[in-house]
């Protein structure tokens, strides 16, 4: 039972971090209809900045710099590449983001090399004991920060001018443009927000119990893809649900690996994708995705 509770809390915490990444992914999709494969490298960029800057300027300044940096990288990708790609189908734009991802990831992994970079966070490996249950402080902080960010984001989405513009664009870009919404600004800000969220996620993916930022961190970011798609690519609620499902599944499968030995070693890494397939079989548009009606 103790193990179960510990795993559940850890899973929810990891899931909240995945939800942050998936949320950025969904925001970009809603604003520009591009499936953004650059996300893994945005995350890596944010994490790298935090890891390199914290010995120089201190942890909190480094985190702000990392978030700002990843947001700038995201905005640059939108401004220099996505905006200029005059192609008919969004599928081709998705491939372009793969190209950008190859570029950024190659350069960043080259910079990281074989090192494992510490994030310099103040929580280190301290744990909190609640009765028999032991939970790492970093996990609790991750949960709190992710929850706060998600709530703030959803409120902004609902009540600020920016959020209204964003939703209007997602609903009908042409009409929104005619009403005076500046589409370029909307998509630029979507990419910047997604970059910032990815950087926060990078921080929490690389703190205790993970050893730190290394070249495999981008692979961890890949798990947010199934999270986004199993929830439904055009739904913010879906991103949250998807993130939690993926996080909890992964943690549970890894935690009970001993009992699940027949599934093979490292099943935790493959589990999110298997869950995604299982859900897509029954709901091709994802759990909360809208099945787009088409008029001919």
């Amino acid at each position: 039972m103790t193990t179960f509770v510990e795993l559940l809390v850890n899973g929810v915490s990891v899931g909240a971090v995945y939800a942050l990444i998936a949320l950025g992914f969904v925001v970009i999709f809603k604003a520009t209809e591009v499936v953004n494969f650059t996300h893994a490298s945005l995350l890596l960029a944010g994490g790298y900045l935090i890891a390199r800057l914290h010995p120089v300027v201190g942890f909190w300044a480094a985190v702000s710099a990392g978030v700002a940096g990843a947001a700038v990288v995201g905005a640059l990708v939108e401004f220099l590449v996505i905006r200029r790609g005059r192609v008919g189908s969004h599928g081709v734009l998705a491939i372009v983001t793969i190209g950008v991802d190859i570029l950024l990831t190659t350069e960043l992994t080259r910079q990281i090399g074989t090192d494992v970079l510490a994030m310099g966070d103040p929580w280190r490996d301290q744990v909190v004991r609640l009765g028999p249950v032991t939970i790492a402080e970093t996990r609790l902080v991750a949960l709190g920060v992710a929850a706060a960010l998600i709530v703030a984001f959803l409120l902004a989405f609902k009540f600020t001018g920016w959020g209204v513009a964003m939703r209007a664009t997602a609903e009908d870009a042409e009409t929104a443009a005619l009403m005076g919404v500046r589409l370029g600004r909307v998509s630029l800000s979507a990419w910047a927000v997604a970059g910032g969220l990815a950087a926060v996620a990078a921080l929490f993916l690389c703190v205790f119990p993970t050893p730190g930022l290394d070249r495999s961190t981008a692979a961890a970011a890949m798990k947010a893809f199934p999270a986004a798609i199993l929830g439904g690519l055009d739904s913010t609620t879906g991103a949250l649900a998807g993130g939690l499902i993926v996080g909890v599944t992964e943690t549970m499968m890894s935690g009970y690996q001993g009992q699940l030995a027949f599934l093979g070693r490292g099943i935790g890494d493959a589990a999110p994708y298997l869950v995604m397939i299982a859900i897509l079989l029954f709901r091709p548009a994802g759990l909360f995705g809208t099945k787009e009606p088409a008029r001919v």
Partner: protein
Amino acid sequence: MSRRTRWIASAAVWGAVTAGAVAAPFYLEGFWLQTGLFAMSAAVGAIGINLLTGATGQLSLGHAFFLAVGAYAYVYLSSDVGLPTPLAAVLAVAASGVAGGLFSPIAGRLKGAYLGIATLALIFGGQHVLFNAETVTGGYNGRAVPPMELFGFVFADSPEVVVFDVPFGSLERLWFLGLVVLGCAALFARGVLRGRPGLAMNAIRDHEIAAGVMGVPVARYRAGVFVVSSMYGGLAGVLVALVFQRVVPDYFGILLSLDYLAMIVIGGLGSVAGAVIGAAFVSLLPQLLTRYGDALPLVAAPGSGGVSPAEAARILYGAAVVTVVLFLPGGLLGLASRLRRAIPRIKELRWANSAPEPASRR
């Protein structure tokens, strides 16, 4: 250019390409033969994924999985089951097709980039199986690949064969096998693309609903193309296994899938020639940089802290993907055909400029 001269020109080009390809093993050293063979197998796989992504508009990041199925099925069937190697190769391709077919409930229903993310599951699930099903796959260390044997002729270094004073080792022999396989694969795909199925596939890519209204069974076509594409992947996998002579799970990861997507975008989406050109570009680039890296600025030896040739190649072709989409719609192939159209136009312009002013201007 009249139709006749154009026909003669294209026949001459194809004749030269064929002659060059046949003569290559007599002149090239082993390193380039191996690179060329990798390019050939990549071309086979790229043709397959171009049918899916380029012609039908369905993104797949799972192609590496089908290569793995082909390669491992060939090894398993030929060494463990003990089938004759050509039969094992055919069955391995069929096995990839079956794997693609099993994925069809998803491949038929999801479109475009959604499918791309769903196929990530194939990669990660596949890697999991490859590492864990050790009795079949050999786990982390992989397995040795038995050489192909066709009508008593072995595609290996022994027994020794010398043709025109050139010793024919496994690479030289495989070169011709690769040429034949690539030729057949290209012809088949061209037939598909030029016939009714090709039109239906393009219709699905351009407007799914319109295609459905015109009577194209959209889901069935999507699933069918996915199966064909995965069989191409399996064939490429068998070739790669034969050239490598060893299969290891690490090779069949997400990076390989990304390479394939880069190939078709760089070469040109939706055509056979585009896939082949892109495959040649992406497979030759790292080797060229490795070989001539010393002479190039910015490229350093691996491990010296600078940009290694492999990294430089990845950066270059990542940039190539972006550049092609932004500035060269249609890829390298599109560039070639635009140049061909531009040359006669320039001639015409010159002729028009040198001609006297028309007299009938009032």
